[in-house]
């Protein structure tokens, strides 16, 4: 079959035609007849006791339909948390309530106090300004360590403290780890901050609630990465709507990066209000509102220690992390610093003893949850920074030190409870040395020095875990959801297919790459395959897209369903050709009988399935439609090696990225162009974290970086042209495509190499700088150089 539609082809993304010509259908493009608009009055205080919310004057304002406050949601469920962590003492985490609209207290700037529904957006906003609030301001807690001190103000009065949990992993390892540090030949210690980030997808969140009084059906249109999860969480835990009366639609979604996984108050509100008012209710988030309501990412403060023996073998790793939860537990927040972070602390190395301690802390800030990489970037950053520091302290080559400690035999069971199925870390490092042109670095450094600039080379490795699984294991770890994926393959009479997937595409290009897989399996053109996603009414129950799971888990479900289709089609073909089913072969869209010249086309078989005149009705049913649910037996483990070259202007501290190379192992690859695009975007976000992005609160809990005037997003001229390579491929052993996942690798793998490169540059200039916290802004780098 033509390679341009099958597995391995860099097919152009079919969805881009509508995205680039302005004909996409985003949630904000959805406008329903009779729709009203909601504006949320939000707290401008980080912490306060809500004495009264007087809406009487506002209710008389033009266009106002109704004003809702926390009192309207008494007796209605709060926003649920989807993961329960058990701490090192065997106690379950402290889990505060999270009302749809604030009740009793406001706990962060942006906490919604009242919702004004009016005929127009501006009327709703006008009326919100007329609501009179009596809020007694309380001291805010912002710094995590201060929040844990005795006598600190409590974010939640009904909890015993601001500590959500104190997690130890693996707790039984702790004495042996401590012992290994006592006997170590060398210990390297590093204290660092993994900076808080705002996801900033291009499309802000939107929700439109609708209610059909004649049928009692609810519909929510929302900017979500996982509409079925929202249907389950909101239906079952917040509003008490059975799933068969609730449809959730996430149409074209303009980026998520994790921030659109979670169930948000605005979704529940619009669904609730649509029924209460018998009118569609729409909310469109402004960018300013997004800064203070979208779940933030990262925000870890860590001390990491690496123990080595006299031969520079890693003997133990110990980490102590404070992880910010913000004011409430966002949907999957507890899992990020624990199971998505602690389990990755072995990295690419055979360190035999590891102990991870994480204290999750409530503060008067926006809730923090998964953001591209979710836990793995935090793990990779600590590990790859402390290894680099160790290499400098020991005076050894940082690549050699890593190579010496690489895991080389697979499968490999780490001391942090996961088993890597495949990988070849030397191969990706070899590839990196080639594409990054390490040999030419000295000459490039001299050129930089001739211009008065310092040049540095930083490298790092990474391993990550994609397609979190299996469900029975994650259930034991505290997940309140399964982590399978689903697909229904519907073949039409004339041979075209529709694949209804539980995965969700919000920029990943599934409509193209998923079609390539099915086309390859059957041997037909990819344009005969349509991918449908994002609507609970026409897709099977699926868990959505995050954690780089879609091709590994969703793709596998689709393969399984397609295999069922092919098996049934072979039965039909065998009947049509009066042959034995065992002798039927499918190639290039033709069924043939092995060893003969007999064949029937794919279209003949599909037509027979729906016009079953000549058909084995006694053996099989008519029709050609199959569903599969796929629950993986393990994570997949992509890995790679990254290199960054920077120039530092010693007069100003400004860092520029001159070169960036990435050698990744994603296993088998469906569409190399899409994979490169994912890596490019991920590295861009990683460079953003390393050099530019900082979500900053002042000591009173006011968000200082609440707009693009102060929150620095990476722009095109902040990043170089990348050298990316994914020719090192050790296929995953436990999914049918042998794929691993590529969506987060760039964001996970890039920040350490940037920081390592800057340290290298400064040291080459004689500056005794061993660490600078991200973002490495000009002022921070300059300050560090002052000693």
């Amino acid at each position, binding site marked *: 079959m033509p390679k341009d539609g099958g597995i391995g082809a860099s097919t152009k993304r079919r969805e881009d035609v509508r995205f680039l010509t302005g004909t996409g259908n985003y949630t904000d493009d959805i406008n329903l007849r009779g729709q009203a608009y909601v504006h949320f009055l939000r707290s401008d205080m980080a912490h306060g006791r809500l004495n009264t919310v007087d809406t009487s004057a506002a209710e008389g304002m033009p266009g106002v339909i109704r004003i809702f406050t926390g009192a309207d949601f008494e007796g209605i469920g709060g926003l649920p948390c989807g993961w329960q962590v058990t701490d090192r003492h065997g106690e379950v985490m402290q889990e505060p309530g999270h009302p749809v609209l604030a009740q009793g207290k406001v706990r962060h700037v942006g906490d919604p106090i009242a919702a004004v529904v009016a005929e127009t957006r501006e009327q709703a906003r006008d009326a919100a300004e007329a609501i009179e609030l009596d809020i007694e301001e309380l001291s805010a807690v912002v710094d995590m360590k201060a929040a844990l001190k005795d006598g600190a103000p409590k974010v939640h009065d009904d909890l015993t403290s601001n500590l959500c949990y104190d997690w130890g992993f693996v707790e039984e390892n702790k004495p042996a780890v401590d012992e290994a540090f006592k006997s170590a030949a060398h210990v390297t210690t590093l204290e660092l901050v993994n900076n808080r980030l705002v996801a900033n997808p291009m499309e802000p969140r939107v929700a439109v609630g609708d209610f059909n009084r004649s049928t009692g059906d609810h519909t929510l249109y929302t900017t979500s990465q996982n509409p079925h999860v929202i249907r389950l969480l909101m239906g079952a835990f917040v509003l008490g709507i059975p799933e068969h009366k609730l449809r959730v639609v996430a149409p074209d979604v303009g980026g998520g990066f994790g921030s659109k996984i979670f169930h948000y108050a605005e979704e529940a509100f619009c669904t609730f209000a649509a029924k209460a008012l018998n009118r569609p209710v729409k909310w469109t988030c402004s960018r300013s509102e997004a800064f203070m309501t979208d779940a933030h990412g990262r925000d870890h403060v860590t001390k990491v220690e690496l123990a080595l023996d006299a031969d520079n073998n890693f003997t133990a790793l110990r980490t102590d992390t404070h992880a910010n939860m913000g004011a409430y537990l966002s949907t999957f927040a507890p899992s990020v610093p624990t199971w998505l972070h602690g389990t990755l602390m072995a990295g690419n190395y055979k360190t035999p003893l590891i102990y991870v301690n994480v204290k999750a802390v409530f503060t008067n800030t926006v809730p923090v949850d998964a953001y591209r990489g979710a836990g793995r970037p935090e793990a990779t950053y600590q590990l790859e920074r402390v290894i680099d520091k160790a290499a400098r302290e020991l005076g050894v080559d940082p690549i050699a030190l890593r190579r010496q400690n690489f895991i080389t035999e697979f499968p490999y069971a780490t001391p942090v409870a996961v088993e890597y199925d495949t990988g070849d870390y030397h191969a990706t490092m070899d590839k990196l040395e080639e594409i990054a042109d390490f040999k030419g670095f000295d000459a490039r450094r001299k050129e930089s020095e001739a211009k008065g600039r310092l040049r540095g080379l930083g490298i790092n490795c990474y391993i990550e875990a994609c397609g979190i699984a299996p469900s029975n294991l994650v259930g034991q770890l505290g997940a309140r959801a399964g982590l399978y994926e689903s697909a229904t393959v519907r073949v039409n009479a004339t041979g075209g297919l529709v694949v209804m997937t539980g995965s969700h595409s919000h920029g990943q290009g599934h409509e193209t790459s998923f079609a390539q897989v099915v086309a390859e399996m059957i041997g037909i053109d990819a344009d005969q395959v349509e991918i449908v996603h994002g609507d609970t009414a026409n897709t099977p129950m699926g868990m959505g897209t995050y954690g780089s799971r879609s091709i590994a888990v969703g793709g596998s479900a689709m393969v399984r369903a397609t295999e069922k289709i092919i098996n049934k089609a072979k039965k039909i073909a065998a009947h049509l050709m009066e042959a034995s089913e065992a002798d039927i072969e499918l190639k290039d869209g033709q069924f043939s009988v092995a060893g003969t010249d007999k064949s029937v086309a794919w279209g003949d078989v599909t037509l027979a399935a729906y016009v079953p005149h000549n058909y084995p009705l006694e053996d099989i049913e008519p029709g050609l439609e199959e569903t599969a649910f796929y629950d993986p037996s393990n994570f997949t483990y992509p890995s790679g090696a990254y290199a960054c070259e920077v120039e530092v202007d010693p007069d100003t501290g400004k860092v520029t990225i001159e070169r960036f190379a990435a050698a990744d192992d994603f296993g088998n690859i469906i569409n190399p162009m899409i994979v490169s695009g994912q890596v490019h975007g991920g590295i861009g976000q990683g460079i953003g974290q390393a050099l530019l992005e900082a979500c*900053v609160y002042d000591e009173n809990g006011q968000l*200082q*970086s609440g707009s693009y005037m102060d929150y620095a997003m990476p722009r095109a001229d902040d990043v170089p042209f990348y050298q990316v390579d994914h020719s090192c491929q050790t296929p995953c052993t436990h999914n049918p495509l042998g794929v691993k996942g590529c969506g987060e690798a760039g964001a996970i793998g890039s920040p350490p190499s940037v920081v390592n490169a800057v340290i290298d540059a400064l040291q080459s200039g004689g500056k005794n700088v061993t660490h600078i916290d991200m973002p490495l802004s000009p002022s921070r780098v*300059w300050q560090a150089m002052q000693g």
Partner: protein
Amino acid sequence: MYAFDIERPTRLTDAVKLLSDATDSQPLGGGQTLIPALKARLAAPERLVCLSAVDEIKGICTADDGALCIGGGTCHADVAAGAGAYPALASLAANIGDPAVRNRGTIGGSLANNDPSSCYPAAVLGSGATVVTTNRKIAADDFFEGMFTTSLEEGEIITEVRFPVPEKANYQKFEQPASRFALVGVFVAKYADGVRVAVTGASEDGVFRWSEAEAALSSDFSAGAVEGLSLSGDGMISDMHGSGDYRAHLVGVLTRRAVAAAG
């Protein structure tokens, strides 16, 4: 934004009349600051008097005395393209914001707003330019009165800015990473009768002249002449993007670079 009326006069005299009648009116230049402020409900004028159709305050010409005259309603992109007689000024304009900003924002609007981090105030003060308004001519040294404050009176419109063209000049902008306004910007201009050095982005009092550097450069126009000079971080803006000391340090670095680049 709150509701407002908008007028779009085509003659300057009509604009002045509208701004002086009883209605609470605000002039609208390119709107690069005012429109976001309106959207955020931080401003609530009853009426906007849009100056974009007043052609008589647009354009670039050379006066008899050789000064480059730029109409107050001229957008940055037009200055970038049309101020070839004053390359440092054209280059400054070419690096303000992005193409959308440069094709809407105007020199008059920027100066009237006097954002402490914007670029044009450095050029105007550094050139000793004259700000011409509907009422009078204001010397640059008398125009800027601190952050977001100028000597403009209510209803007074900037019609033109007259820049004496220097022998040599250069503007060095060190960008704030997020906004890409000037974290610090230094404009150096060498005239027959001396050197002017104007600094934007750094001071809590807005754009200012660095007189010590001016004196040193007036006797020796070389980067080395300002090598030993430094400013105190006291009174400098200190925020998440840099301390006052860092900004003070950058003033020195950028001044040397501007002198070197001016040739």
